[in-house]
């Protein structure tokens, strides 16, 4: 039985005929307003009726600004235009950023029966992606896949790079892509005329327009094939002869490790030796070797690989000495000069923002004295008063540089003070827990190693990281005898990386307590 819907019988309202609907999703600073003005000018110059509206997003990206344009041929008498786009009824969607394309698809502004989607593939991270303590970057691949399904015609290319390369802004290359897509019934010259009518930055805009037009018609040129990966040359470090001999000995020990983990162990060793010296590097290899011996080729040395990574990170903790050392290195000055494009006739003033607390100062003292002061609130308060304030240090000046240089020079004594002792104890307790799960609970041991990722940051954020780490490890104790214990630890860690306050983590811990209690 078929049901004749009365809707079918209605004649279309002539006032709605021939209307072209365009939605533009742009992020602050991309020139979405300019693009809209160009489209409007273009439509009017071709004798079309046109109306443009915009709904502001938030500049800091909780959403894009949506510009909406409707146009109809001049022979349609008094067309009725809508103020905002509606799902399933947009002819052309322009997204000035990859995730905004994704958002447009989710809102229904891209449909397979009608929509031409023009999107730039470059990324400007949204606030929600940036604030995650772990890695919150969304996947462009998923958006690309969705776009291929959702759009009738699809133009995807990096419009931002194309525009910046010719000294302009993405709005111009998107306008070019709109022309190149052929979705509007106007000639290229008419588009260019609209840019000229705008009167500002005409030449660069026209160049970007041409680039966008080209991208829309010919697609992105396949990237030149990656040059044959040069067999990574083992760059020997420079330094005094004795250290170089010690380094060669360490290298020989790495060659004795299983092939699967050699690369990671090399990276780890370099980091640790760079942090302190070759003796410390040897300690690193000792620790690693213990776990390698408990490992097996059947598991592809997964445990050892993780150990090579996280033991190195744990051993090169971020203390005052390391920061001072890194900030006074010549490589750093060269990098900054490059990044800031300092030309030979310019000078560079470099101000570092430092803020030591009593904890950092006490961490530099010998263990006994440090412990005593640490447990004495009066002393901690006093030290705080002396040192705890924001310091803006001019690292390019002699005084500022000398201060950091002397601090960095404390490296020689680094293995004596309180901070090292604390890090050492923490590291040993952690590795003991890992070893405790071997050989029977291999997966559990691997997950416990990976939890080291939670510890990062300085001062308060460091303390928070530590407390999360402790919580996850305590949670691990609750599920250690379950078959799916390792999965639970992984879940706890992911939860801890998701938000700063640790609400997700606390929730996950409650779940665990409910069944393991």
């Amino acid at each position: 039985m078929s049901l004749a819907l009365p809707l079918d019988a209605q004649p279309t309202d002539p006032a709605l005929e021939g209307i072209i609907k365009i939605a533009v999703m742009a992020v602050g600073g991309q020139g979405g307003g300019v693009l809209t003005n160009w489209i409007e000018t273009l439509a009017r110059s071709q004798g079309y009726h046109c109306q443009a509206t915009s709904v502001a997003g938030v500049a800091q990206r909780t959403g894009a600004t949506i510009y909406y344009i409707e146009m109809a041929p001049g022979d349609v008498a008094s067309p009725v235009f809508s103020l905002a786009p509606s799902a399933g009824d947009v002819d052309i969607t322009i997204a000035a950023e990859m995730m905004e394309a994704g958002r447009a698809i989710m809102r229904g502004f891209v449909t397979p029966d009608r929509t031409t989607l023009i999107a730039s593939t470059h990324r400007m991270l949204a606030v929600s992606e940036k604030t995650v303590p772990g890695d919150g970057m969304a996947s462009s691949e998923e958006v690309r896949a969705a776009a291929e399904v959702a759009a009738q015609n699809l133009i995807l290319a990096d419009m931002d790079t194309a525009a910046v390369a010719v000294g302009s802004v993405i709005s111009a290359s998107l306008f070019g892509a709109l022309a190149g897509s052929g979705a509007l019934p106007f000639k290229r010259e008419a588009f260019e005329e609209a840019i000229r009518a705008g009167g500002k930055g005409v030449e660069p805009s026209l160049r970007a327009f041409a680039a966008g037009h080209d991208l829309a018609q010919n697609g992105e040129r396949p990237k030149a094939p990656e040059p044959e990966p040069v067999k990574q040359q083992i760059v020997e470090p420079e330094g005094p002869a004795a250290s170089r001999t010690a380094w060669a000995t360490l290298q020989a020990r790495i060659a004795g490790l299983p092939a699967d983990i050699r690369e990671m162990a090399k990276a780890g060793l370099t980091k640790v030796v760079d942090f302190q010296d070759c003796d410390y590097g040897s300690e690193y290899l000792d620790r690693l070797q213990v776990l390698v011996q408990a490992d097996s080729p059947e598991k592809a040395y997964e445990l050892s690989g993780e150990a090579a990574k996280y033991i190195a990170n744990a051993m090169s903790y971020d203390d005052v000495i390391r920061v001072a050392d890194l900030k006074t290195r010549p490589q750093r000055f060269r990098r900054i000069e490059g990044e800031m494009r300092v030309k030979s006739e310019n000078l560079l003033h470099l101000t570092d923002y430092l803020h030591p607390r009593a904890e950092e100062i006490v961490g530099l003292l010998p263990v006994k004295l440090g412990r005593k002061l640490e447990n004495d609130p009066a002393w901690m308060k006093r030290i705080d008063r002396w040192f705890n304030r924001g310091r803006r240090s001019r690292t390019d000046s002699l005084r500022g540089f000398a201060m950091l240089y002397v601090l960095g020079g404390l490296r020689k004594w680094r293995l004596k003070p309180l901070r090292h002792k604390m890090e050492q104890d923490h590291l040993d307790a952690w590795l003991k827990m890992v070893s405790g799960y071997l050989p029977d609970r291999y997966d559990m041991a691997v997950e416990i190693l990976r939890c080291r990722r939670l510890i990062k940051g300085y001062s308060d954020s460091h303390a928070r990281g530590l407390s999360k780490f402790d919580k996850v490890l305590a949670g691990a104790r609750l599920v250690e005898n379950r078959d799916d214990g390792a999965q639970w630890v992984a879940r706890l860690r992911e939860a801890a990386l998701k938000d700063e306050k640790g609400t997700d983590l606390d929730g996950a811990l409650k779940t665990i307590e409910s069944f393991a209690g």
Partner: protein
Amino acid sequence: MLNRQRREKPLRNRAIADGNRVEIPRFGVDQDVCTGDHACIRLSGCPSLSLKKLDDPLRDDPVAHIDQSCVGCGNCGEVADAAILCPSFYEAKVVHNPSGFETWYAGLRRRIIAWLQDRRAGKRLAFSGESA
């Protein structure tokens, strides 16, 4: 911020072309000091303060990074300092058309600093990368 981008920038460029002394500030993050906890981004929300993935097998999480669009307002540095977040932030002021004395003095400072750096580099193993 918009004011700095749109109104001050052309004035500044003209002043540089005229040979006046101009300081252009921009902020940066030391990528090997940053641990990638993103606490600064949760507090600051600056559009120029974004993330960068490092080509380092030992690092899991992307680090903070300030891109070319920074106008040097200084908010990120202030926040990192006031909330005692981390020592990763720095301000780099590029001085255009410095005076003769200034150039000479900066050259002297640079030579002394380079001498100190060489002195330290001679006593330790130096790897070619900034930090491995």
